Every structure is written in structure tokens, then in C-alpha cells.
């Protein structure tokens, strides 16, 4: 890390200057939190395209085995493993994390707490540069000899540790290096988010005046940082197994493969909540704005979120119920796993209760927020099946698991991202997006999404297991009925991907031709809506003072139904 500091310090002089900057300096070496946020967002969206393309390729292979996939080519077993591995890793590490935490965190935190930039602007820029490096390394891993890594995103050793087993010598190492770099990037970013929101709040902003989305991003960052240490340690050990020849995870040399599962899932489960919380926060902002309602039980939600954060660290072994751990340990983790449904249920109940007595306007962001709740509810309740250890004997590594976690991750990463994007688009680019196209995009995404994953619950119940490139070798699974379901899921996927072109059109055309956005198009309360759209460098002409909480909508006795946080008494 010391080395990188030196190289990037040479750009530092250009960082915070207020004179006219060249295009490259402005958009590539900026220390402005908004620009860095957009960099993260565009990189994340690009990676989403890559991840979606991979999903398209392997779903086509599953529906029409052995046929040439249009725009891809033939998918062999090695190719298939590489596609699913990198689809998983990209969607979690290079889409959900950068967009939900890094992009929205960077754009929203300073604006929402009323300061001009992050506390450590140059660390922030370094974070993005390391992230970009990780993307480059990941792409390198696809093109080395032997092809990309194909040991699943969980990369269980000894498969991932020994080149003779995985047949992708350098692909596996580069993949691991890319993941490790990505962690370092978010570690730096996360430190920045937490420090900024605790230390740079506008005068008068108490802890309970912080918008819930900022809290959620902060808690997610803290959870990330408390959980990532073991995985960094594990990655170093696995990398040494691959390249130096140690045997930490290789049983023939005295190592223990289950140890990796321990270290991996210790990070892997909190990671789910790390990406969930920012999405929940975004949804809370949108629902209060468009229902013109105060958030139902701000403090309850805050404390249950704390509880979720704590509980998230004691559930991780439920991924290993039948992985050779002591079966008695499973009982403990069964209890903790079902316990975590309690705070999450409380949060969802509060969100639904927020709708009560509202004046709900179904604009595009609100549709996405409500779509999030419904889809996430489906993912949440199916999690109970898998948390039940005895039932997990049957469902472990089956398509039921796939359908379950896509029903949670899709609302989190994709619906949450679109919700936030439609909501803050006017603030980011200073123009409004087209409402009709937005609604077409919403329905065109949410219906095919359920068309993909509801059938996959069924094939999961039929005993179809994961990561199989072709079910020809499993006679019970190669029936015409199940194949029909697979084709249906694939057709839904292609439909959903095609509808994303509507979004792309809307996004890029509105950026230049859209209607000019006023400072506060949604009549919202939080501080980011008090500055012009898009906000200038330095954000606030004069630093705001905060008088009240962020959700004072429809306060009785006020003429307007909103009451911005920085506005003194209206009467």
C-alpha cells in the first residue's frame, strides 16, 4: 500500500483545486465525492452488463444443451463453470457492493449530512483506483492460459488450491487477487464513510436526525470491515497454497479444507446483510417521500438494524450444515439463523406500516421500492426453509437455494439500484428521466424476474442440483417436464435482459435531452434536495443547519406537506 501512495500523490496537487480542470482531471482524477460516486456507478453498471451476459450464456446452455449460444458460442463444461463462478462473483463483489455501498454512499453521504466532501477525499479516490485495478485483474483472469477460474464463487479448496484439480492455474490466482484487491478498495472506502458520517455532520444534526439510508450504509460498512478480515487472511493463505506451495487447505499436506469454509462464510454471510442494508435504506427514503409519511418507528428500525448487524455474525455456519461440521453445532446455528428473521421481519412490518394513512403517488421510484418489498419478502420467507437445518439436507446446493438467494439478491442489487437511480437521477445529472419508459422498464423487469425464479423453486424441489452444465447425466432430472421449466426460465431471462435496453435508452437520452430538473423535484426533506441539481463542487453555498429529523412529512398545521431539515420554523 505504501507504494501506491507514492504513485498517486503525484496527482494530488490537482485534486482539490477550484480552477477550470481538464476533462480527464475532472472525471478521472477528481477527489470530488460525486464524481467518484459516478465512477463507481458506471463501473458497477458495466460489470452488471458483463454479469448479465454471463447469465444469458449459461442459461441458454441449460435450456438448449450443447447448442451454439447466439453472441457467445458453445458452452463446454469448463466454460460453464467459469461463467457461473464469475457471474456470482461479479454480481456480488463488482455490482452490488460498488453500486449500493460505494456509489450511493459516495454520492449521498456528504450531501445528506450537509458537508462539502468526504473527510478523506484522497483516500476516496485511491479506493476507486484500487477497485478499477481489481476489475482489470479480473478481466485478465478470463484470458490467461486455461481460462477463467471455475471453482464457484465460494472457491472451496482443495479444488481451488491445487492447479491439477481445477485446471485453471493462473485463472484461479488472478481471480483471487482481484477479489482481494476489491476488498482493500472497500475497506478504504468504508473507513471513509463511517468517519465522514460520524464526524462531519451539519450543525444541529443529532444521531436520530441522520437519514436512515446513511445509517444503513454506515452500518453496512462497519459490518463489512468487521467481517472482511478473516476472508483477507483466508485469501492470502489460499493464494499461498496456489502459488508458493503451502498446504493450509490441502489435506494431503496436513491442512484442513473445512477451515476455508469457516473463514469464507464468516465473511460470506454478513456480506448478504452488507448489501441488504443500503438497499433497505434507499427504499425507506423513497417510500417516505412518495407516501408523504413519516417513517414508521425510526428508532425501532434503527435498533433492529443494529440487532441485525450483531446477529449477522453468529449465523454463518448455516452454509455448512452438511459440509462435515459437527452436527451438534448445526443446532446452535439453526436457532441463530431463525432468530435473524425476527429483526428483518420487524423492519419489513415497519415499512409496510409506513404506507398506512399515506398519500401514495406511484411514480417510478416508488414502484421500484414497492417491488423491492414484495420480491424481498419472497426471498426472505424462502430463507426459512434453508435455515431449517433438517430441510437443508435436501435443499443444500439445489436450485431452491439459487431461487432463494436470487429472490433476495435481485431485489437488493438490481431493484435497489434502479430504485435509487430513478430517485436520485435528477440530483446526479440535473435532468428528469422519462416516466413512461421508467414504468415500462419496471414491469418489464419485475414480471420476467419472477418468470425466471419461481420455476427454479420448482426444479429445486424436484432435486435439481447446482452447477451442472447439462443434466443429461442425471436421468431423473433430464425429463421433458423439467426441461420445459428450464426453457421457460431462460426465455424469461432473455425477455428481462431485452427490457434493460429501455432503461439504457432512457438513461442516456435523458442525460442530455431530459427535462431540466428543479432542486427538489420530489418535494423531499433531506439536505441533498436543498442544493441545485446537479450540486456544484463543494455542494453547499453555505453550510446548512439542521433543525429536525428527515421524515417530517404532512406535519399537521403546516401549509406544505414537507418540511426540509434545514428550514427554520415555517410558521
Amino acid at each position: 500500500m505504501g507504494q501506491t501512495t507514492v504513485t498517486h500523490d503525484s496527482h494530488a496537487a490537482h485534486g482539490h483545486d477550484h480552477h477550470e480542470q481538464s476533462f480527464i482531471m475532472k472525471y478521472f482524477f477528481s477527489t470530488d465525492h460525486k464524481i467518484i460516486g459516478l465512477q463507481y456507478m458506471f463501473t458497477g453498471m458495466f460489470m452488471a452488463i458483463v454479469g448479465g451476459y454471463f447469465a444469458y450464456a449459461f442459461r441458454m446452455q441449460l435450456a438448449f444443451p450443447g447448442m451454439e449460444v447466439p453472441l457467445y458460442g458453445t458452452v463446454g463444461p469448463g466454460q460453464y463453470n467459469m461463467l457461473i463462478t464469475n457471474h456470482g462473483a461479479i454480481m456480488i463483489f463488482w455490482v452490488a457492493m460498488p453500486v449500493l455501498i460505494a456509489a450511493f454512499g459516495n454520492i449521498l453521504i456528504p450531501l445528506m449530512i450537509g458537508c462539502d466532501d468526504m473527510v478523506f477525499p484522497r483516500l476516496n479516490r485511491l479506493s476507486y483506483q484500487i477497485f478499477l485495478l481489481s476489475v482489470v485483474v479480473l478481466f485478465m483472469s478470463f484470458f490467461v492460459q486455461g481460462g477463467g477460474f471455475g471453482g464457484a464463487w465460494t472457491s472451496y479448496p482443495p479444488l481451488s488450491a491445487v492447479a491439477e484439480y481445477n485446471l485453471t492455474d493462473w485463472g484461479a490466482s488472478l481471480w483471487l487477487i482481484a477479489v482481494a484487491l476489491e476488498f482493500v478498495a472497500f475497506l478504504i472506502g468504508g473507513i471513509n464513510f463511517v468517519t465522514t458520517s460520524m464526524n462531519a455532520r451539519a450543525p444541529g444534526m443529532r444521531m436520530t436526525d441522520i437519514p436512515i439510508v446513511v445509517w444503513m450504509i454506515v452500518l453496512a460498512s462497519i459490518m463489512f470491515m468487521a467481517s472482511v478480515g478473516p476472508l483477507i487472511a483466508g485469501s492470502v493463505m489460499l493464494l499461498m497454497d496456489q502459488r508458493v506451495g503451502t498446504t493450509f487447505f490441502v489435506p494431503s499436506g496436513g491442512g484442513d479444507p473445512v477451515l476455508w469454509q469457516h473463514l469464507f462464510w464468516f465473511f460470506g454471510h454478513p456480506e448478504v446483510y452488507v448489501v441488504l442494508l443500503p438497499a433497505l435504506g434507499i427504499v425507506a427514503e423513497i417510500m417516505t417521500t412518495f407516501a408523504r409519511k413519516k417513517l414508521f418507528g425510526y428508532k425501532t428500525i434503527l435498533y433492529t438494524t443494529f440487532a441485525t448487524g450483531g446477529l449477522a455474525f453468529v449465523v454463518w455456519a448455516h452454509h455448512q450444515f452438511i459440509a462435515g461440521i459437527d452436527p451438534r453445532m448445526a443446532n446452535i446455528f439453526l436457532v441463530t439463523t431463525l432468530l435473524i428473521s425476527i429483526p428483518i421481519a420487524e423492519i419489513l412490518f415497519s415499512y409496510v406500516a409506513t404506507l398506512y394513512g399515506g398519500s401514495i403517488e406511484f411514480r417510478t421510484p416508488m414502484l421500484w421500492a414497492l417491488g423491492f418489498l414484495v420480491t424481498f419478502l419472497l426471498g426472505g420467507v424462502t430463507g426459512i426453509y434453508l435455515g431449517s437445518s433438517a430441510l437443508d439436507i435436501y435443499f443444500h446446493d439445489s436450485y431452491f437455494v439459487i431461487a432463494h438467494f436470487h429472490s433476495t439478491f435481485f431485489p437488493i442489487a438490481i431493484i435497489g439500484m434502479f430504485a435509487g437511480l430513478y430517485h436520485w437521477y435528477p440530483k446526479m445529472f440535473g435532468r428528469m428521466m422519462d416516466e413512461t419508459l421508467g414504468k415500462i422498464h419496471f414491469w418489464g423487469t419485475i414480471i420476467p424476474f419472477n418468470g425466471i425464479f419461481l420455476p427454479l423453486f420448482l426444479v429445486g424441489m424436484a432435486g435439481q442440483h447446482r452447477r451442472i452444465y447439462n443434466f443429461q447425466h442425471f436421468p431423473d432430472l433430464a425429463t421433458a417436464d423439467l426441461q420445459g421449466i428450464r426453457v421457460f426460465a431462460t426465455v424469461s431471462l432473455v425477455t428481462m435482459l431485452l427490457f434493460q435496453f429501455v432503461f439504457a435508452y432512457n438513461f442516456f437520452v435523458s442525460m442530455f435531452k431530459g427535462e431540466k430538473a428543479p432542486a427538489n423535484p420530489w418535494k423531499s426533506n433531506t439536505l441533498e434536495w436543498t442544493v441545485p441539481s446537479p450540486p456544484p463542487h463543494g455542494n453547499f453555498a453555505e453550510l446548512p443547519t439542521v433543525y429536525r429529523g428527515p421524515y417530517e412529512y404532512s406535519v399537521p398545521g403546516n401549509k406544505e406537506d414537507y418540511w426540509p431539515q434545514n428550514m427554520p420554523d415555517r410558521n
Partner: protein
Amino acid sequence: MILLVAPEIPANSNAERRQLVSSSIFATVILIMTEVMFFAALISAYMIIRSGAEEWPPWGQPRLPVFATALNSLTLLASAFCLHRSVKVFSSQSSQSKQLLALTIALGTVFVSVQGYEWVQLISFGLTITSSTYGGVFYLIIGAHGLHVIGGLLALLACLRRLNSTSQQLTIDNLRAAQIFWYFVVGVWPVLYTLVYLL
């Protein structure tokens, strides 16, 4: 980690706002949370790998120099004490503070060099990172700690350089952040020493 405490980081532009605690200290504390978990994972890995071995240390592998390392540990503890004194007199007697800081760095360097010498010896006796899982975890854990010591030393050096320069001012907060990190590095050592050398 050097970045966080390095004095070249521009001070918070919202400096007129009263902070909960100085940003550099806050950031260091959060970083240390990650570091604690990092070492916790290494310790867990050590315990699990060791429990699976039939004989520990394995047959034919050299024993670790317990006593020499104990003496070396004292150097590290002494450096923490020097740093403690240095921060205490930072505002009142800056020249003494500077000397104590230099002494801290010197002691830290001695620790790292002695550890390095020990490694050279051990490698010549046949304990290498691939010779057994014993060697593997030894070099992994002690090496990870060694890198943290070097990182901490660089941070302290950066503080010292600022203390000497006339153009840049070293604030007590920056020094405190470096101090917290150094305390962590020193504090985790006895745990690792007990685990790897003694048990």
C-alpha cells in the same frame, strides 16, 4: 494503513465543525477493528491446523528460539513505553518528544531486524514455508505481524519527518493515530508469541 495516519492526508475541510473525535483517530480505530479480525482468523487457522496434526512441531522440524524471542519481545514493549512518553510530553517538551519518537522507531527496527535474523537462521535449519504446515503457519502469522510492524514504523517515521520539517505541522491527533496503531501492533504480539512459541 500508513495512508490513514500519514501526515500528508489533508486535514478535514470541515475542520470548523466539532468532531466526535479526531477523524484520523476514528479512522484508525475502525481500521484496527478489521485488523483484530484479521489476526483472529489467523489465530483460528493456527489452532485448527495444529489440532489436526499428530505431532506438533512435526518430526524433524527445528524448534523455535523461545528465549531469544522473549528478549526481543521486550524491545517491542519498551518501544511502546517510549511512544507513550513521547506523546505525553508532545505539547510541553517537543525536543524530548522528538528524541523519544526516534528511540521508538529505533527499538521497533531492532525488533524487526532480530526477527529477520531469526528467520534466516530457521530457514538454514530447514524450516521453510513449504517444509510443513508448521513452517507455513509460523511464517504466515509472524510474517503478517512483521509487515504490520514495518507499516507502523513507516507511519511513525512519517510523523518524525513532519516533526522535523518546518513547513508542515504535526498535530497531536496524527501522532495519536500512529500511537494507537503502534499499540495495536505491540499489543497483538504477546498473544501471537504465546500461541506460536510457547504453547
